[in-house]
């Protein structure tokens, strides 16, 4: 034995193995390369053969009876179960089989456990994110929701079975079969629990009801005088067409909240500045839905359409499926992470959901006695604050301990120890009252939707739904069409919670809720001879005669377009609905275009500039992928906005609320001498014509640069992605040829858009179409990972085949899995 070369060689080999077994890098770590590249362990195992058979026989002790799952060519499962409990079990199993990593990661994100998987992040961004989720009370809210869910025997049984189904899959999963993302990040799944279902529900509540502008509005209120403030943040939108048509009569308020005696002195007229900064979900998380009476359709039967707008992610937030039990037969999309079909239809009726976008998150400025934050001033004396210490596990680092105080208003979200996402820090402390933190059982609504047969079942199903407030559209085969804006909404006195409120006395707390029967609703039965449809697109639900304060943070334009189109259509077919859901018409641009063209001073323009103007003039205000008009409009409007507002806004170092696009447009349409047009930094008084022309001239270099980069057409410029949850470009689909935009029914933005387009015609045999930007498999190595994306971008749909037991031999059945317990 040659000892020295032997030892040298041994050390080299072991050293090599060590190097290939550890994760390299700083903030973003590599996977351990040896394991990752090993064809028997690593990513090659996830390279699913394109002709893979999904047939199988599964013996699972947790089932009560036998069940069969038939997969069609799109890998959509058609589940035939012996009862609803087995259906939930099989659904849990299928979600885990095809979407395990995603469903677990989403619940980690909900629970503030992202650092545990991804590390601290740049500038501790992941730790900050985790702190914000925990401080908001996501985990306590989920625990409270779980207790409520488990009080309902049906929901409890279904959640237990769902969890057992997920765990049945996880427990037999070999390390080599783990989803790709676990291998990339080098960790393994933990057992599923019912709490994770509740966490997922709260995650959706955060996504849909986690938005407010209280800090920015508070700063704006203290910076601008009253006249300017009213001009920048008006309380009515001229162009809005509410969900419940204008002029509808409302009964007087059943509950009237009282404004505190000090509201003017200590709140509305009190200048307060906020330097903390919130983390917020996408402000355009919205959606469209509408349901049309048979009186307006070709088939004389109702048609229901829905397209919820969410972040367009891979794996998709949705998983499409049919579930058949002796009690119900339901088809639609489910959330990997929760039982039931969430948006869909059964043999009797169809339902669709959009976000209510009501403000259910308010902040209170808390006066603590000292930096320990153990006592705070409330109703004239020092009272003790609850305190808890959260432990945030950080991958590759020390655990982070966060001490969170809690007040009678709610948990302290931001304080000197946690300024949120502000670089400046904060000297003040703010407690938050967030409606979804109150206990509730939202899953119950969906458990009842599966088997609902008529309008009264639907009403009974939604009545307990609290957060996030939603517009539930409904249509059934008997011809009833309805919509409810349902949720538990705090009844607020005027401007309550529009700004950060004083947290030193009880009079500023929420005093009660709007009684459920007073939630906005519209019912069209078969005898209705009115407008023949209901619709919602996140616009304000009601006009100003509604007896409660709602604020004005509602986008008006999609709703306006939908109602106009539906008013003009008759003998409607599903084909018409396809065109409507994928419509790229931009009503905001249509209103702004004449204003711009009227005010541009054309004489001094060069030939090049005139050319852009010509393209804009000839543009039909439709944001189709190959149009240049929307790009010109976007840059032009952006510069106009800056030119009009930046001179005033840049005088403050605070984070100020920026006026909505609708505010600027409506102001200019009403008043061509809108006071903000004048640039306060120049002695002269600018005119609208000057500022419109200047903005156009400023836009031209941007347009030339875009043209040079090959990004002058709308789709290229907008660059819509369907992005992997880890934001890895290679696992995402980028630069999709899709038009639309934020004000269009086809609300496809860069990272956000129609996450599921569905059209259901309630004829005797239901006809349904649907598509989502993704694919049924969450595995980036599967041909079913993104196979819907191109069709979705092109505005095409899949037929939603409601399979019957008699169809077992149908050629559309590609694979079969038999589930049994023996």
């Amino acid at each position: 034995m040659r000892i020295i070369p032997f030892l040298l060689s041994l050390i080299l080999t072991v050293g090599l193995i060590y190097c290939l077994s550890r994760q390299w890098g700083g903030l973003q770590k590599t996977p351990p390369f040896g394991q990752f590249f090993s064809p028997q362990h690593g990513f090659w195992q996830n390279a699913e053969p394109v002709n893979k058979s999904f047939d199988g026989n599964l013996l699972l002790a947790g089932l009560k009876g036998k069940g069969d799952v038939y997969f069609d060519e799109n890998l959509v499962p058609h589940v035939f179960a012996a009862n609803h409990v087995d259906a939930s079990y099989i659904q849990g199993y299928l979600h885990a089989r095809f979407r395990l990593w995603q469903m677990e990661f989403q619940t980690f994100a909900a629970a503030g456990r992202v650092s545990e998987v991804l590390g601290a992040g740049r500038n501790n961004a992941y730790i900050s994110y985790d702190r914000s989720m925990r401080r908001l009370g996501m985990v306590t809210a989920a625990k409270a929701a779980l207790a409520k869910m488990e009080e309902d025997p049906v929901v409890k049984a279904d959640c237990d079975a769902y969890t057992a189904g997920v765990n049945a899959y996880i427990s037999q999963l070999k390390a080599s079969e783990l989803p790709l993302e676990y291998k990339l990040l080098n960790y393994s799944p933990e057992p599923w629990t019912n709490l994770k279902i509740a966490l997922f529900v709260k995650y959706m509540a955060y996504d849909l009801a986690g938005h407010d502008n209280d800090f920015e509005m508070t700063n704006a209120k203290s910076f601008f005088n009253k006249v300017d403030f009213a001009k920048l943040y008006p309380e009515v939108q001229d162009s809005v067409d509410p969900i419940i048509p204008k002029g509808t009569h409302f009964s007087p308020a059943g509950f009237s909240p009282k404004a505190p005696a000090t509201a003017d002195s200590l709140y509305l007229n009190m200048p307060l500045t906020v330097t903390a900064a919130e983390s917020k979900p996408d402000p355009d998380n919205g959606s469209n839905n509408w349901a049309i009476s048979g009186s307006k359709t070709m088939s004389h039967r109702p048609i229901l359409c829905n397209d919820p707008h969410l972040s367009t992610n891979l794996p998709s937030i949705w998983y499409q499926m049919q579930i058949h039990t002796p009690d119900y037969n339901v088809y639609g999309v489910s959330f990997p992470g929760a039982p039931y079909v969430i948006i869909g239809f059964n043999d009797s009726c169809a339902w669709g959901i959009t976000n209510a976008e009501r403000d259910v998150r308010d902040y209170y400025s808390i006066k603590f006695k000292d930096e320990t934050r153990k006592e705070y001033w409330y109703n004239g004396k020092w009272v003790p604050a609850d305190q808890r210490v959260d432990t945030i596990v950080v991958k590759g680092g020390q655990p982070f301990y966060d001490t969170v105080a809690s007040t009678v208003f709610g948990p302290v979200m931001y304080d000197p120890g946690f300024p949120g996402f502000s670089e400046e820090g904060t000297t003040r402390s703010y407690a938050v009252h967030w409606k979804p933190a109150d206990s509730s059982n939202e899953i119950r609504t969906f458990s009842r939707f599966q088997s609902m047969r008529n309008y009264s079942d639907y009403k009974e199903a939604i009545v307990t739904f609290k957060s996030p407030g939603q517009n539930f559209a409904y249509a059934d085969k008997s011809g009833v069409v309805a919509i409810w804006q349902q949720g538990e909404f705090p009844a607020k006195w005027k401007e309550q919670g529009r700004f950060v409120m004083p947290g030193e006395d009880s009079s500023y707390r929420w005093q009660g809720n709007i009684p459920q029967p007073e939630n906005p609703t519209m019912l069209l039965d078969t005898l209705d001879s009115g407008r023949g449809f209901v619709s919602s697109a996140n616009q304000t639900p009601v006009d100003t005669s509604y007896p409660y304060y709602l604020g004005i943070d509602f986008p008006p334009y999609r709703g306006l377009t939908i109602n106009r189109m539906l008013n003009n259509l008759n003998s409607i077919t599903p084909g018409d609905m396809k065109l409507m859901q994928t419509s790229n018409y931009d009503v905001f641009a249509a209103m702004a275009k004449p204003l711009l063209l009227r005010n541009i001073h054309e004489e001094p323009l060069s030939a090049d500039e005139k050319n852009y103007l010509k393209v804009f003039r000839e543009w039909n205000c439709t944001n189709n992928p190959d149009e240049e008009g929307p790009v010109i409009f976007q840059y032009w409007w952006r510069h106009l906005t800056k030119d009009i507002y930046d001179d005033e806004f840049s005088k403050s170092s605070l984070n100020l609320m920026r006026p909505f696009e609708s505010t600027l447009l409506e102001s200019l349409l009403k008043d061509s001498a809108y006071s903000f047009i004048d640039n306060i930094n120049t002695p002269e008084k600018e005119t609208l014509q000057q500022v419109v022309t200047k903005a156009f001239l400023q836009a031209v270099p941007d347009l030339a640069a875009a043209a040079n980069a090959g990004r002058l057409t709308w789709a290229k410029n907008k660059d819509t992605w369907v992005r992997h949850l880890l934001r890895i470009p290679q696992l995402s689909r980028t630069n999709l040829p899709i038009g639309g935009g934020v004000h269009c029914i086809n609300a496809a933005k860069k990272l956000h858009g129609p996450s599921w387009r569905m059209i259901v015609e309630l004829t005797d045999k239901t006809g349904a179409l649907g598509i989502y930007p993704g694919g049924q498999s969450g595995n980036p190595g599967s041909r079913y990972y993104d196979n819907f994306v191109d069709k979705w971008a092109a505005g095409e749909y899949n037929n939603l085949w409601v399979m019957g037991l008699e169809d077992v031999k149908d050629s559309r059945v590609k694979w079969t899995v038999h589930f049994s317990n023996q």
Partner: protein
Amino acid sequence: MIKFFVSILLIALLSFICGLFLPWWSIAIAAFVVSALIPQRPLRAFFAGFVALFLLWGGLATYFDMANNSILSARVAGMVYLHGSSVALLVVTGFIGALVGGGGSLTAAFLRK
């Protein structure tokens, strides 16, 4: 020369079997054991282990990749700075296995001499 080819065959076979049950680095042990039993000069032993694992890992990966129409390898190759080249990814895969296998065999060769 026969020894060389027999070693390659046995290392590949044993590595494959180990890979079914043991962690990925068991290929080093497989190469070590075979090279300890079939003594060769160090350089030869190294190449036996190297070639065996290059063929095994590269071959298995090629097999999976073909069945997959390179859907996944194109994505992963983009992530590891190989510009989406599936072939480059296959070569890297084979090379990583080969280095570890070669190391195992080389160590064994010095043990015997």
